[in-house]
């Protein structure tokens, strides 16, 4: 099964750029003590991710309706967000007010959610052939 589809790749690129921009904006705002701006930034970042997820997820399903309960997009989001978060600290780009411990905690708790999602994905795979729902394949 081709899991990394073209639309997932476009989503990953958009998400990567968004996450880097968010990280930069966050660290910059905190460093300059523009604490109010952090809220605005977080809201913009939320809507940006919602929109790219909606757009590329819909296009992906229209192209080939893989029965993965959204796990591929979730995994890519988790991987990129947390990798960028950790790398941000390793490259010393973080502000004084950010904590690496918090980044790890997010990765751990989100990781637990991802594992639960993965279990649902495995259960759904039993109802599929090459990722396509058996019910819809010959409809």
């Amino acid at each position: 099964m081709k899991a990394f589809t073209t639309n997932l790749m476009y989503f990953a690129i958009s998400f990567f750029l968004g996450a880097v921009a968010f990280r930069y904006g966050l660290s910059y705002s905190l460093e300059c003590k523009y604490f109010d701006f952090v809220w605005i930034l977080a809201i913009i970042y939320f809507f940006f991710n919602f929109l790219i997820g909606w757009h590329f997820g819909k296009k992906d399903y229209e192209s080939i309706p893989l029965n993965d309960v959204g796990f591929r997009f979730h995994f890519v989001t988790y991987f990129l967000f947390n990798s960028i978060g950790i790398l941000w600290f390793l490259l010393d780009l973080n502000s004084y007010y950010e904590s690496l411990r918090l980044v790890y905690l997010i990765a751990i708790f989100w990781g637990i959610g991802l594992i639960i999602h993965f279990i649902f994905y495995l259960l759904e795979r039993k109802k599929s052939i090459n990722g396509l729902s058996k019910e819809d394949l010959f409809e």
Partner: protein
Amino acid sequence: MKNSNLLTELLATWEETYKKGQLTLWIFLSLKDGRKYVDEIKSFVEEQSEYTMTCESQSLYRTLRKFKHVGVVDFETGTGNKGPDRKYYFLTELGHDLLENFIQRNINLFFNKRIKDLINKEE
């Protein structure tokens, strides 16, 4: 309700249910006939089914993408008529085996002498 109206309504309802899932067989038959691009598949299905089956090109593309994904259909690009290159679809070996098995198990029953006689028997 008049009997003729009831008959028409019952027939339409039965046919609607019956046709669900039949498009796959018609697509496979059209590709068994030879490699085709989407408009040719559409024409084949409609003409050979005597217009009892109709299909939209968009829905055919979507179906063919699914079949390609599971490996029963593939395509090669060929030159179009004045326009851009076309995707010519064909059945893979797995696709041929699948169609053959499906026909053996589900279609050949209707060629059984007893069933054929029953179908042709007049009340």
